[in-house]
């Protein structure tokens, strides 16, 4: 239980104990140095107070060994802080494979979250305890930031970029999330609650609230036809553009010879700025959809393209890098 005047927020994710331990470690070192300097100053201040108006202090010879000592000791300690901090950071950035993906959109001044089955929430986000959760973040206007103090996680939500973050909730409950990057008038109101549930409760909640929700894959498939994507991106690889079967998560060989992984950010960019990365063997024919699709529609299209991962990949016309192209 938290006291009336807590000095750290609740620990409710896999990261929270790590971050708090790091905090204690650095605090310990810093309190020691601050106390040492303060005590020295206070002692000298009283002990060496000027005795007569014309008294002069005693000159102390400089000592290079002393200077070296107080450069090297802080250097070693700060490298320890750097190293430990780096280890924790790499953990933040290495997303595990088996994540439950939730799309989060920030816009002035609200949050929209979309569960894998298409269920949409506003300023709320439900997650099961003990599962690795990945949030895919995008913004419809300015830079926002998704911050859950109890999880010790924070990531900017940048227009034009997909940022991702992950965490594993460890304790059921309701936790504040905030927008932590100043975004205009109602920045302070742009927050909500993350609800961490037992997996069975989460499943029940998902199916119980499912009525009226369209699976994003279905929405995406409809859009794929409506926007005439299917005219060129023919599934069997005979179209003017590469087949998208199996493309998600695969390596794609580009016209300039480089290879990229087809993740969400790549697919998003290829929809909005098709000419940024051209698949080897294809012409830059595709029109841009910048400004013609909402972020939610882009999500739906990506969800549909991800669903094609299991479809048979045609022998030619797939755009996926051949195995020999692997580095």
């Amino acid at each position, binding site marked *: 239980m938290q006291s009336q005047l807590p*000095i750290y*927020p609740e620990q409710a994710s896999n990261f929270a104990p*790590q*971050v708090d331990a*790091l*905090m204690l470690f*650095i*605090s310990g*070192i*810093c309190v020691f*140095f*601050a106390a040492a*300097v*303060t005590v*020295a*100053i206070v002692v*000298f*201040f009283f002990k*060496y*107070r000027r*005795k*007569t108006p*014309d*008294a*002069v*202090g005693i*000159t*102390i010879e*400089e000592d290079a060994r002393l*200077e070296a000592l*107080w450069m090297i000791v*802080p250097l070693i300690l*700060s490298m320890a802080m*750097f190293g*430990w*901090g*780096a*280890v*924790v*950071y790499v953990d*933040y950035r290495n997303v595990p494979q088996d994540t439950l993906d939730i799309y989060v959109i920030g816009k002035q001044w609200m949050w929209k979250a979309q569960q894998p089955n298409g269920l949409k929430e506003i300023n709320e986000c439900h997650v099961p305890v003990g599962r690795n959760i990945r949030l895919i973040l995008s913004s419809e*206007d*300015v*830079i926002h930031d998704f*911050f859950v*103090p*109890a999880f010790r996680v*924070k990531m900017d939500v*940048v*227009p034009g*970029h997909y940022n991702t973050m992950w965490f594993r909730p460890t304790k059921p409950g309701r936790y*504040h999330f905030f927008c*932590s990057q*100043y*975004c*205009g*008038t109602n*920045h*302070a109101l742009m927050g909500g609650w993350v609800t961490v549930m037992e997996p069975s409760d989460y499943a029940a909640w998902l199916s119980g609230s499912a009525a009226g929700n369209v699976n994003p894959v279905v929405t995406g498939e409809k859009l794929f036809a409506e926007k005439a994507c299917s005219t060129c991106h023919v599934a069997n690889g005979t179209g003017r553009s590469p087949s998208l079967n199996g493309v998600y998560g695969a390596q794609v060989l580009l016209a300039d010879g480089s290879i990229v992984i087809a993740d969400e950010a790549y697919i998003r960019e290829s929809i909005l700025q098709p000419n940024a990365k051209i698949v080897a063997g294809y012409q830059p024919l595709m029109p841009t959809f*910048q400004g013609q699709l909402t972020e939610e529609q882009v999500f739906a299209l990506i969800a549909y393209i991800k669903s094609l991962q299991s479809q048979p990949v045609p022998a030619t016309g797939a755009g996926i890098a051949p195995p020999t192209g692997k580095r």
Partner: protein
Amino acid sequence: MSNTPPTLVRELPHKHYLNATYGAGLRSWLLTTDHKRIALLYLASVTVFFFIGGVLATMIRIHLLTPGGALVTPETYNKLFTMHGVAMIFFFLIPSIPAVFGNFLIPLMIGAKDLAFPKINLLSWYIYVIGGCFVLYSFGTGGLDTGWTFYTPLSSVYSNSAVTPAVLGIFINGFSSILTGLNFIVTIHTMRAPGMTWFRMPLFVWAHYATSLVMILGTPVVAITLLLAGLERMFHLGFFNPALGGDPILFQHLFWFYSHPAVYIMILPAMGVISEIIPTFARKPIFGYAFIAGSSIAIAVIGFLVWAHHMFVTGESTYAALTFSFLSYLVAIPSAVKVFNWTSTLYKGSISWDPPMIYALGFIGLFVIGGLTGLFLACLGLDIHIHDTYFVVAHFHYIMVGGAVMGYVGGLHFWWPKITGRLYPRSLSRFAAVVLFIGFNLTFFPQFILGYLGMPRRYHTYPPEFQVLNVLSTAGASILALGYLLPMSYLTWSMRYGRVAGPNPWPATGLEWKTDSPPLTENFEVTPVVTWEPYDFKNRPDLGLGTGTPSPAPAHGDD
């Protein structure tokens, strides 16, 4: 120059820079090329901006007394903290010590008659005033609500406030900074008096040399960055707006490339002030002169390589984050070197409890906390949680207010007798220093805890569990305000009624104390020749102190 016994009633010199007239009244000030008068022009104008920024800060703290916000609408609150930041950073902190004390003291300290380019010096003040007018115009016509960081695309597309005049004002003001830095570098290189070698220069001058490097190399980048944001706003050119093919992260890189080193523009001169005060009032040579001088240069150089530590949660690459975190830890070392050397200087000193010393020791206390909390923010794993929270707000106020402003006020108390020729009330000013120290800590220490608890910055309303700490902070701010009003009052009073100080009241060893207070327009009647080492009280019979050997009885009795 003789030292008259303190019992005598002194009088101001007959002729000095304040009563020398080159024209009538106001004109003699507005057309002056005397570095000392220009310094006073700056003193008056930065005080105006400090006052504006201070009033805005007061309103912020009153508003945050209750979770719902006690005073203003969300729009107004956002304008309050934005205008507070812009006024304080660009128009008070950055020019404060360099343009006031640097201008006044550098020629005096190195034995020169003026800066290398006196007319450019005056020009830089006019540029500052024009830039300031643009910004005040922005404040007066709709205000500014982008945050002082002007992040795009909020500033360049979405904000409905007067962004364009503000960025133009800061762009213009940048040239003032560049010209000041240029003037200092040329002056320090070419106009040192005979015998004033590089390693005999006061550490204040070293600090300003380092600061000038940052001003010259960094300011053009922020100027052009803000201009680009302005162009995007006015003419819809796509630099930073993704809808026009730009990248908002590019803005942050460009902005912080200057704005992180800008922190060193604020703190290095304050460190220079402290490096003067400590040996003067401990009355012994500063410990580790070369290390303190070198650490100023090291801070200026490494300070240019740490900017992306402001961007650990923007989605920048892990390798970039690792590099910038590592470099950020390196820049902490020269700051630590300074603190250890200042502290060691006190050892076996003859420590006076004069007001400037109280301010300087207060500076060290606050700067240590500000500097050490930088280690938390430089730590990658920890920064994710505390980035953009009140922890950051507390950290940079400890550096900029606890450090830079405390150094500025300490410098005012140290050189006030030189600038005005008069002393101020001793007990009252020591009391004010203690009030400042206590008020500051009460205002900003609770914010570290608020930040770790997760309160984001720039919130006009907050969950009720954060209220206790916010109330503490506001209570501290009212004490802090008293701590600033007191010196403003008694220093103003002393300009007319203060006791006449004489040329070297403390006494101190610098060349600026070898001339009258206030000095002649030409600074020195004859160009001084320097034959002594810096801060050497033992071999300076002209200071009228105890003989070359320290008075043995009390010193040894203490060992």
